[in-house]
């Protein structure tokens, strides 16, 4: 018997087959194997052997499920006891499972939300090597970063620096795209073929290697392809693009279609054309005058960035001169930091994640406290088991099993809560999160990790503690509980501290947002309607001028329109254009300052007071060219005095300052009011203006807006009628903050509810334990309030300690959060008093009823057994 049949196959059979069939089947197959080795050779015998093993796995031959496990008797016993314990102590189990499942649900929500932020742009495979080139102006007040760069910078970087592998320019413009004889507004990106080597844009249709085979190629994303061609495979089709900034119509052929971009991506190009195809490109190709596009670079090694930045001053000098070198820095922004620089604050996401973990922690503490508090009741069980021969390890396994059963039920329930409430959650916070962004396997794996870590975290201390209770002490009724009591107290203090911290944070965040939302913006926002009316959104701009003009005249004749004004930008979406300017008598470096155009009616319609000097004269040609109005911030920046006449210089043009307006907040209060130059363009000069502001009579609003809309539709603009109210726009400035406040508030409330639940459970046990003490005190003549004081003293002490711990944390972390707002509230002590009162109030509510009942109960009931 040289050759053996595979042993594993037999073990496999042993495991699955019914005990009464197993021997016969295994024996027969084995015997046949040896017989076949001689008759048919080893290979065939082995093959048939395995085949027969598999064929033997017929349902009739299998063990019933109940018997199907190795040595599961003891494990099944653990499970059985765990379920019994859960059912026996219904209130505790409810508190544990309910608290934990809500905690899990909150954690999952927070995770899904913050995951989008933490994985922002992660789909770009070379993310760690991608940088964005930008420049810094060195001004007397510090450095000023701007992210617009020059057309020739890309080629210069590649030719001068070997460390740079690829570079691409990226400029977002707007275009009108022809579809069925109508023009639709689209964002269009001018870029370079190298963009696709730097970033990961998966190609669905078209040639991966050559995305821009000709100059007139266009790359679409799937959504856009379907929008224009009703199919994602739009390769080869032609598309007619009217480029508004170039004032030309060009024909492009679709060369590739890329996948739709994930939500959490900084670059979301929907149509891309090669920059070289723009008619004006040859003029700009070598121009170092205007900087307006983004330049991305791909380094061979990310650590080269420091070396490159150190060498950039030489590059600057070789492009311009020594003077520019003195006041300009070139920098490389790691792509990693793009989110924080342009989109939001990942610190807020980290805070939310911390809250999520805190919520889970509170729920875990509940479990630990309630299990150790039950120790007296379970001590007998433990003692008896030990007497009957259970090892400490076995007892530990049993208690751990209980916590696993609990964490399993809670996690499943928590996920169900998520599934059923994710839609309202998304609607409420205006988000787009979904479990479906993960595969089923990932969700199962993550749940398993959650179940195991929750089970171990919440179960290990109670298991260790409960199993260490000595059998003899228990049976002699001598159970010292001091160690567990003090540990439990620490945990309760921790819960209170977290709750206090969260309440204080909610109060501070909401006060800051209220402060910003209610602070006088410095302009009037009531009853003001904004219409986007840019001459750029007409295919024929000559015609646009006259049409918009008659549109305005028609509007001003309406009785319900009290006032009308045209301007380049309006508060809340203020100008992003900059110019270099200096006071006429300055010899120093010019300042880089924002500028915009308004008509003479602008300050009246927004109620912005002219502090010194005068407003623009309406319909004055001289006023249009030679005068400017500053805001107070600009006046301070120029160090002008209000007494004398001031002039500024832009290049060689001298411009006299005719007036100074009071500062008004044209953007969120997060930023300080920036110095702005405001130039005059008469209302009829529509090429300078993008928006029309109307002061309306707010009655019958719906019909009136419909009327204005139908007037707009007759103009033949490529753009649909779009309007907004100024007060809405002001409120929307704080959308992100309000969402943050909503989440912090919601999850703080959740954590406090869970903490209160735990407290309630703990009170039940404490009172139970002190029943006799209370009864004896009552018999000896104690008043109800004496007894209440007895119970409340402990809780008050804990809250006090928690308060002392929580306050410095809150002051530090929220102080840091407030730092990012230029106009901010001070953290006042009242906040903490309010937080303390809320927590004390909740403690009294939670503990009070039970205590009162205990204090007023009839002592005889509990003493009659003695």
């Amino acid at each position, binding site marked *: 018997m040289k050759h053996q049949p595979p042993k594993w196959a037999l073990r496999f059979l042993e495991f699955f087959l019914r005990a009464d069939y197993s021997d016969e089947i295994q024996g027969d197959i084995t015997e*046949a194997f040896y017989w076949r080795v001689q008759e048919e050779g080893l290979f065939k015998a082995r093959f048939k052997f395995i085949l027969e093993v598999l064929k033997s796995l017929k349902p009739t031959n299998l063990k019933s499920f109940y018997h199907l496990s190795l040595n599961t008797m003891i494990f099944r016993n653990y499970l059985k006891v765990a379920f019994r314990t859960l059912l026996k102590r219904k209130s505790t189990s409810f508190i544990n499972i309910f608290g934990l499942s809500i905690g899990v649900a909150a954690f999952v929500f927070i995770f899904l939300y913050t995951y989008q932020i933490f994985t922002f742009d992660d789909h770009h495979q070379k993310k760690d090597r991608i940088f964005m080139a930008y420049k810094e102006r060195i001004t007397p007040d510090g450095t000023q970063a701007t992210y617009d760069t020059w057309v020739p910078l890309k080629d210069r970087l590649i030719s001068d620096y070997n460390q740079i592998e690829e570079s691409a320019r990226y400029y977002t413009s707007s275009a009108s795209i022809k579809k069925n004889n109508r023009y639709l507004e689209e964002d269009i990106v001018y870029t370079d073929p190298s963009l696709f080597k730097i970033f990961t844009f998966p190609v669905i249709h078209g040639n991966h290697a050559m995305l821009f085979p000709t100059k007139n190629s266009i790359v679409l994303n799937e959504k856009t392809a379907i929008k224009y061609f009703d199919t994602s495979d739009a390769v080869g089709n032609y598309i007619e693009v009217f480029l508004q900034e170039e004032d030309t119509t060009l024909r492009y052929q679709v060369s590739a279609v890329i996948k739709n971009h994930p939500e959490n991506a900084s670059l979301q190009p929907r149509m891309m054309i090669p920059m070289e195809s723009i008619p004006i490109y040859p003029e700009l190709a070598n121009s170092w005058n205007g900087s307006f596009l983004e330049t991305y670079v791909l380094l061979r090694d990310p650590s080269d960035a420091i070396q490159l930045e150190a060498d950039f001053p030489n590059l600057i000098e070789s492009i311009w001169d020594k003077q520019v070198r003195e006041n300009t820095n070139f920098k490389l922004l790691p792509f990693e930091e793009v989110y924080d620089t342009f989109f939001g604050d990942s610190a807020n996401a980290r805070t939310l994640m911390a809250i999520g973990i805190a919520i889970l922690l509170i729920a875990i503490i509940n479990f630990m406290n309630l299990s150790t508090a039950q120790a007296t009741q379970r001590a007998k069980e433990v003692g008896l088991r030990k007497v009957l021969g259970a090892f400490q390890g076995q007892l530990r396994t049993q208690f751990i099993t209980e916590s696993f059963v609990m964490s399993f039920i809670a996690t499943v329930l928590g996920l169900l809560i998520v599934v059923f409430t994710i839609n309202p959650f998304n609607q409420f916070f205006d988000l787009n999160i979904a479990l479906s962004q993960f595969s089923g396997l990932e969700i199962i794996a993550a749940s398993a990790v959650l179940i195991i870590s929750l089970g171990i975290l919440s179960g290990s201390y109670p298991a260790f503690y409960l199993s260490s209770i000595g059998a003899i002490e228990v049976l002699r009724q001598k159970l010292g509980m001091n160690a567990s009591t003090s540990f439990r107290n620490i945990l309760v203090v921790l819960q209170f501290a977290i709750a206090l911290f969260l309440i204080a944070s909610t109060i501070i965040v909401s006060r800051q947002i209220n402060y910003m939302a209610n602070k006088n913006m410095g302009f009037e926002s009531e009853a003001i309607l904004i219409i986007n009316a840019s001459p750029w959104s007409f295919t024929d701009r000559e015609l646009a001028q006259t049409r918009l003009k008659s549109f305005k005249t028609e509007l001003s004749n309406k009785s319900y329109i009290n006032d009308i004004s045209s301007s380049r930008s309006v508060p809340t979406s203020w100008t992003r254009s900059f110019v270099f300017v200096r006071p006429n008598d300055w010899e120093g470096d010019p300042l880089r300052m924002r500028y915009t155009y308004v008509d003479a009616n602008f300050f009246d319609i927004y109620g912005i007071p002219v502090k010194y000097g005068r407003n623009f004269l309406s319909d004055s040609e001289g006023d249009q060219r030679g005068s400017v109005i500053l805001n107070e911030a600009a006046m301070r920046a120029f160090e002008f005095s209000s007494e004398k006449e001031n002039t500024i210089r832009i290049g060689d043009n001298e411009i006299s300052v005719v007036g100074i307006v009071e500062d008004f907040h044209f953007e969120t209060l997060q930023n300080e009011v920036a110095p702005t130059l405001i130039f005059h363009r008469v209302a009829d000069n529509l090429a300078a203006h993008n928006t029309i502001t109307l002061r309306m009579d707010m009655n019958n609003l719906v019909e009136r807006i419909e009327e204005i809309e139908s007037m707009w539709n007759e103009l033949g603009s490529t753009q649909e009628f779009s309007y907004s109210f100024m007060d809405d726009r002001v409120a929307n400035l704080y959308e992100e903050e309000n969402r943050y406040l909503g989440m912090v508030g919601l999850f703080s409330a959740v954590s406090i509810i869970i903490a209160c639940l735990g407290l309630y459970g703990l009170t039940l046990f404490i009172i139970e334990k002190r029943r006799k003490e209370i009864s004896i005190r009552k018999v000896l003549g104690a008043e109800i309030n004496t007894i209440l004081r007895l119970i409340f003293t402990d809780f008050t002490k804990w809250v006090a300690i928690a308060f002392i711990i929580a306050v410095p944390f809150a002051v530090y972390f929220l102080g840091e959060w407030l730092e990012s707002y230029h106009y901010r509230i001070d953290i006042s002590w009242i906040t903490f008093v309010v937080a303390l009162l809320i927590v004390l109030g909740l403690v009294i509510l939670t503990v009070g009823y039970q205590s009162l009942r205990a204090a007023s109960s009839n002592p005889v009931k509990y003493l009659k057994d003695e």
Partner: protein
Amino acid sequence: MNLQLGTLEEMILIILLMKEETYGVEIAKEYKNQLSQTISLPAIHVVLKRLEKKGFVESRLGEPTPERGGKGKRLYRATNKGFETAQELQHRRNEIWKTIPKLNFSLA
């Protein structure tokens, strides 16, 4: 009498009648000898269980042997009922066989 018996069931029952007492591997060998066709053991096992359930065979545990990996055999033996059923089937088949008009199929 219930004569529901599959072809394979009948064949194995006949092999069992042939041998005094036998088990899976022997049946497989005999089957191969008689019919020059191989059969897998799990197939035999299923049939044996079915026959046993119908009461045509009975079984007992045998001794373990080394070539069986130390596992015991299950030895099967046909019951009287099994014998009668097989005989009845055989008889009826012969009756039917006789009714075939031989002239229609020339033996030449």
